């Protein structure tokens, strides 16, 4: 039976070694050690920020709005602010636009006029108490402040840097003034920018928004943790350091470079992939020009074949009239200038990695969908359980296998970004590719088993129907279960070796 030979295949020696090793790599399992983070809502973030601000306000004896301005200047790092403040208070004040020391009444974030004055914005005259200032001597009427803050908030987060409108005056407009003068919705927007600043402009070592689509949660890590990858409650998996999609074992820098490359060349590449096949003779990428199906590979191969069936063109002479109008383009192609050829070679190199990066991404997505379907109420798990006569709760091993596949596909795709950025002259590319190849093989076997052999099992049992021999289903099921669990462990070990190998060599790549 064909299935038998496959079993022999997966029971090869190398895998058995892995199987014995697996206990020793237990603590490297990312699922078990990265628990040093929690999820917080915007309100939690605000509360935390208010606490820090209140504390600084007390310690420096300044109003809260100024405390927030100082904190923001120090990227919301209270410790840094205190150090800078006690080393050189003048400088910190100057940085946010405040004079060296508070006025006669100390620091005042907003004050009302005590004399009748003309508003320098609307030119009307106002009685005492009808105007306010940012604590300086420039008073404007309430209406003009409202408009001034509205315009600033409309300009986005820069409203946190708002200054008094007085020409040349640098006094900051802070929370107390905004709350006293602005319209309700502008106050709310200003408050939102303040909270965002805490996360986005903060040293961002400890809090970060989840970049998942539509997700409003923030992730907070224990201070001092070397947090890398985070799985949000919304299921989005991302890098805590740079905010990109999770990208282990590629470094944040490699990831940035790769994402930029894909952004600039990705569109061309997707097109080329959709319009490119490989020469059946030499395997080089052949780009399809227009609708012609007669393809000629470049030098030195010159193999002619049909785009549609990849068969030799010699068998397609009947179709030749479709293609002759592209003869000119064809001869141009074979006489490419060196520069074009080099550009092409560099694109081909990128394509090699991009295609695999994309393909593993697609497989990952598919596996995630399968996993979601299995988990869904009355989903695949129940059907399978019904078919084999096993309660769905006993099928956790299948969910575990799928979770492994999703995770491994993610890691594998990023290894392609990593290897693309290696320098063949300096890095041991072969070593990386060896690890990658081994891991990939184990993953393909696991995925195949989880997908196709599960299907086969179902079909097999369905075929027998009611006439199923006693013990047959149980036997088949046990066989499948054992194999899948084994492949899962093998894959897990390959991937932990892979991640370890890639990450330990990382310093050589990004320098």
């Amino acid at each position: 039976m064909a299935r038998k030979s496959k079993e022999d295949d997966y029971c090869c020696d190398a895998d058995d070694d892995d199987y014995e090793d697996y206990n020793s790599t237990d603590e490297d399992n990312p699922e078990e050690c990265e628990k040093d983070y929690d999820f917080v809502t915007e309100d939690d973030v605000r509360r935390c920020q208010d606490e820090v601000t209140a504390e600084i306000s007390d310690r420096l004896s300044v109003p809260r709005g100024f405390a927030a301005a100082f904190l923001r200047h120090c990227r919301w790092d209270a410790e840094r602010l205190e150090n800078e403040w006690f080393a050189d208070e003048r400088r910190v004040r100057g940085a946010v636009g405040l004079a060296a020391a508070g006025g006669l009444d100390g620091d005042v974030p907003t004050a009302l006029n005590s004399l009748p004055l003309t508003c320098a914005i609307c030119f009307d005259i106002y009685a005492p108490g009808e105007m306010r200032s940012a604590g300086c001597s420039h008073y404007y009427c309430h209406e003009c402040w409202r408009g001034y803050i509205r315009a600033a908030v409309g300009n986005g987060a820069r409203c946190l840097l708002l200054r008094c409108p007085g020409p040349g005056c640098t006094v900051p407009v802070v929370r107390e003034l905004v709350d006293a003068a602005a319209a309700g919705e502008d106050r709310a927007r200003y408050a939102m920018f303040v909270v965002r600043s805490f996360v986005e402009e903060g040293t961002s070592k400890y809090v970060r928004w989840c970049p998942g689509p539509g997700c409003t949660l923030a992730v907070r890590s224990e201070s001092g943790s070397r947090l890398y990858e985070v799985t949000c409650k919304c299921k989005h998996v991302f890098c805590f350091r740079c905010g990109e999609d999770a990208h282990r074992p590629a470094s944040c820098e490699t990831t940035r470079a790769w994402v930029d490359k894909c952004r600039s060349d990705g569109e061309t590449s997707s097109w080329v992939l959709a319009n490119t096949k490989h020469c059946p003779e030499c395997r080089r990428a052949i780009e399809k020009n227009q609708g012609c199906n007669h393809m000629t590979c470049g030098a030195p191969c010159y193999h002619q074949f049909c785009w549609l069936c990849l068969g030799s063109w010699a068998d397609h002479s009947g179709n030749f009239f479709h293609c002759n109008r592209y003869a000119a383009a064809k001869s141009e192609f074979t006489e490419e200038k060196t520069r074009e050829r080099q550009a092409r070679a560099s694109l081909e190199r990128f394509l090699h990695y991009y295609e695999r990066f994309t393909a593993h991404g697609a497989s990952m997505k598919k596996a995630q969908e399968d996993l979601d379907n299995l988990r869904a109420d009355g989903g695949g798990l129940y059907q399978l359980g019904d078919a084999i006569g096993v309660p769905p709760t006993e099928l956790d091993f299948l969910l575990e296998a799928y979770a492994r596949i999703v995770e491994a596909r993610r890691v594998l795709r990023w290894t392609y970004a990593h290897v693309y950025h290696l320098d063949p002259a300096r890095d041991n590319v072969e070593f990386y590719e060896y690890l990658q190849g081994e891991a990939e093989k184990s993953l393909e076997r696991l995925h195949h088993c989880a997908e196709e052999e599960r299907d086969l099992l179902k079909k097999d049992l369905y075929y027998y129907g009611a006439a199923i021999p006693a013990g047959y289903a149980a036997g088949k099921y046990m066989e499948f279960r054992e194999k899948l669990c084994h492949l899962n462990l093998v894959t897990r070990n390959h991937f932990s070796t892979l991640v370890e190998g890639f990450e330990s060599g990382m310093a050589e790549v990004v320098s």
Partner: protein
Amino acid sequence: MAHSNLPRRIIKETQRLLSEPAPGISASPTEENMRYFNVMILGPSQSPYEGGVFKLELFLPEEYPMAPPKVRFLTKIYHPNIDKLGRICLDILKDKWSPALQIRTVLLSIQALLSAPNPDDPLADNVAKHWKSNETEAVETAKEWTRLYASGE
């Protein structure tokens, strides 16, 4: 005249511009649109623009004075901070705008910019390059352009 919903500030600014014009500057709103001003600035003495009469247009957008006025040279001028289309690189017309500034302050600042071109913050790249590599020659070109395009006809 469409005075009806013009903010009092604009009316007052306009009255003052007309009754006490700044030296070397004139600005008057058009009949059809009280937010659109025809402006004339005389080239400051001891600048390459001396003797020139420069026409500008100034428009007060709906958000004025929370947003800055829009100003543009109509007369061709050779200046590192003014481009071919007459657009002006001046901080108070952009992020340094404050509603406590006025049309008068803006026009005075533009006049000052004619006296002190700033090739380090250029809008017209080739003019700025010219200015930095050979200032004498660039000043000559500016004078030539003033004679050619700003002679007041």
